[in-house]
């Protein structure tokens, strides 16, 4: 599982940089999106990947079998920020093409 995620991150970074170096602003945008997904996956993987382990603290579950909730919260924050920036960049592109 870790290897699969690591390969995906590598692929995302490679594709992201490739698009970032391409011509045109849409390419830049796509490149940035791919890179930010790679960063999100890195954080997600940094908490350790577990199968069937909810990140819920109910007082009875053993901490050892729970997933680490913090990386999930961090990824959520990063996704929201990334989405906001994506919206801003799209608006910037729209404005520079409409005039």
């Amino acid at each position, binding site marked *: 599982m870790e290897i699969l995620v690591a390969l995906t991150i590598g692929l995302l970074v490679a594709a992201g940089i490739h698009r*970032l170096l391409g011509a045109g*602003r849409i390419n*830049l945008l796509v490149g*940035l999106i791919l*890179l*930010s997904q*790679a*960063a*999100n996956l*890195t*954080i*997600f*993987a*940094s*908490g*350790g990947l577990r199968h069937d382990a909810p990140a819920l603290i109910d007082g009875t579950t053993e901490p050892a079998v729970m997933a680490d909730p*913090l*990386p999930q919260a*961090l990824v959520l*924050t*990063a996704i929201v*920020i990334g989405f*906001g*920036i994506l919206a*801003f*960049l799209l608006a*910037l592109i729209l*404005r*520079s093409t409409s005039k």
Partner: protein
Amino acid sequence: MTPQLAILTALFAPLAGALVTLALPRRRAAFVVGAVALALSLAAAIGLVVATAGGAVHALHAGNWPAPFGIVLVADGFSALMLAVCQLVTLAAFVSAAWTLPARFHRRHLVPLVQLLAFGTCGAFLTGDLFNLYVWFEVLLLSSFALMSILPGREARAGTWRYVVINLVSSLLFLTAAGLIYGKTGSLNFADLRLRLVDADSAFLVESSAALLFGAFAIKAALVPLAFWLPASYPLLPPALGALFAGLLTKVGLYALYRVGTMVFGFDGDFPHRGVLFAVALLTMIAGVLGAIGQSGMRGILSFHIISQVGYMALALALFSPLAIAAGIFYLVHHIVVKANLFLVTGLVEERAGSSELNRVGGLLHASPLLALAFAVPALSLAGLPPLSGFFAKFALLRSSLDLGDTLAATAIVVVGVLTLFSMLKIWRGAFWGEPRAALPGRTPPAVGISSACLAAVTLAIGLACGPVFGLAESAANSLLDPAAYLDAVLGSANPVMP
């Protein structure tokens, strides 16, 4: 007022200012509310400087959550000092910008955006957590993006894109580094990270994530070879906004470098990649000052000098002796004020002469001697002439490099200082000496003049009261290099207990 309340005031006054000014339709009312909010934040920041002067550290555990788990806001000597200086410069730049910039900027929410920029910088200085630092960076970057995208014209749009993309790439590096550090140590709190990194067994993971972090901060701080976005975008800004950007943005990157390099990764007089930072700092100093020689406009020259001066401050960090760090902090304080002031003066020159291109203005010394004086004070301070603040900053840095026996650094400090003087003389000769090349169309707006005069007075005051200010810098440096008080304030007895 308790220090905790001062932390909250410094942080949330600009946010409240942003929300209120967003709702105010009238330009003048928004201006007054914005200035009051920033002044309130500045007052709280000065209160924090006083409260932390003796090396005390005050932490605010948000929601009373204990430290490595909850969000913690920390004011130590370094962050309080930076906060006060940055709020001062923001206030001066805000007054100038809101007063002089055309209606186009006001229609696109200039006032709330500047407030949010101040909010982001305050948060970045006060946070005690790596991931929160990332979030604060995004807050201030997004406001700066929005400010920059107001600029009209094709060239400005291209510059905005350059600025946006490079900064987003740097944020992504930062985010990845934060993720890796969490994976390695299981914590993101600065104080907790330090404790965990002391006995880290794998040097490889620490060094790789440190490299990513330093790379991200180096882009934001504009260290060569990652600096060329800066002269491509800053000269496009109107000088009042240029003052804001020049004073704050690269310095927040430097602040992060100092904080992470010393407190999180710095043990036993060393931190990862110190040699690389040393080389990069020298390169930055020299490349910046040489780049300025090729420029013909005041905006361009000043933008390249930001790079060269950032090199000095990075060099102070790379030397890593207590005196060098104190010199670096003093340099930061001095530089933020001086550089913002130089941009304000550029704005005055543009208002008075219609341009700040050196081949289109001239003879301003005769037309308005006060304007010439307003330029001379920060320019000579930037070049490092006594008794202005820049002299003491350079002197302390030179002294620390000689103490360490580092003649290469000492030579670079002196040579780049002389070349800086050369650039300032070039502006002086081009804009102020000689005969006026054209009729001087405009008048200098009083609000900008007063802001610039206030900053010049602060420069003089830092120079004349060098002892006490350097004392503050030294205590800030001590708290970075030996953060026992910081660790105690965040994790120690003041830390709330888990219910």
